[in-house]
């Protein structure tokens, strides 16, 4: 059959940069985990290239990834979550490159959601709350959340607060009066067993501050 690589191309194939990156999302669908990998070089010709993981698996020695556009993904309950696995890029059964990976050290949490800001006139503050699916999980329960907020007109002037809970209070006097603000949240694993990367940002929430700045003065 027509394969993506003709004979002489095979040598060229050897020169391709097969470096790749992966992240895991545990209990993303009930008890099912999701492992996603992609090539670092987005221009690579990934025809006939496959990904396989071996080691630190329950019941089986190896599992093959599925492919969707330029991403390779594997949804399974079979991760041991203890010890190292080996992920290989294969071209027609031949290992082009392999890497040792520990599933619990490449965890990318799911993005927080439901960000809300409630103004408390009596307390002169804003209560920020948000939700995360990780509160209901068995494994990756402990996260650090980064809340970022800015005055909408100040493009890159983000203020940032790290917390482990899902509630934060912003003092009215610390914000500009009568101004539109944007706020969003992201998460990263915070237990020394599970490590990994920042999640995607939550959808932003926008709110306007009252005319006064909470000390009775108006700027």
């Amino acid at each position: 059959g027509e394969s993506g690589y003709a004979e002489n191309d095979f040598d060229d194939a050897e020169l391709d940069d097969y470096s790749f990156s992966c992240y895991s999302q545990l209990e993303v669908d009930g008890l099912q985990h999701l492992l996603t990998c992609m090539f670092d070089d987005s221009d690579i010709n990934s025809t006939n290239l496959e990904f396989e993981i071996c080691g630190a698996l329950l019941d089986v020695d190896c599992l093959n990834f599925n492919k969707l556009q330029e991403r390779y993904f594997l949804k399974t309950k079979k991760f041991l979550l203890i010890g190292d696995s080996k992920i290989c890029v294969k071209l027609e059964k031949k290992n082009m490159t392999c890497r040792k990976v520990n599933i619990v050290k490449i965890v990318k949490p799911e993005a927080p959601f439901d960000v809300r800001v409630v103004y408390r006139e009596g307390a002169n503050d804003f209560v920020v709350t948000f939700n995360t699916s990780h509160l209901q999980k068995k494994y990756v329960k402990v996260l650090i959340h980064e809340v970022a907020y800015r005055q909408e007109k100040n493009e890159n002037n983000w203020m940032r607060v790290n917390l482990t809970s899902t509630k934060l209070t912003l003092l009215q006097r610390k914000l500009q009066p009568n101004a539109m603000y944007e706020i969003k949240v992201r998460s990263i694993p915070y237990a020394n067993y599970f490590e990994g990367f920042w999640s995607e940002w939550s959808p932003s929430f926008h709110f306007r501050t009252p005319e006064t700045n909470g000390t009775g003065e108006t700027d």
Partner: protein
Amino acid sequence: YNFTDCDFKKIKESYRNIIYQELNNYTKGTKAIDFDHFVYCEDQPDCLSKIQSLTFEGRPGCAAPAREAFAVRTHAALAAACPGYRGPQINNTQTMRKIRKRQIKRKECLEQVTYLKELWQRLSRIS
């Protein structure tokens, strides 16, 4: 195998984050007081030695929970943290479903795994 040189911190992390959940799944609904026997382990190596024995060796009425999820993970944790540890060879490609049909969770197995939980708890408390 002498467990003295194991990385006990690493093993306790595997237990607290992974194995604990699996043991709970297996013994869901069972309470330690359901069984009158008492298990104890002296120090960390002794605890691991007893954990290995209860996990991978059969007893009357309970063939050996060696292929249960918690046992496979215990094996992985010991192999990852104890130099030269090989432990019993678990035939990883035998499907669990076939084995589970034969080894219905008898009372004896629940008892054995309940004692395992106590040993792990004891180990996790030893500093």
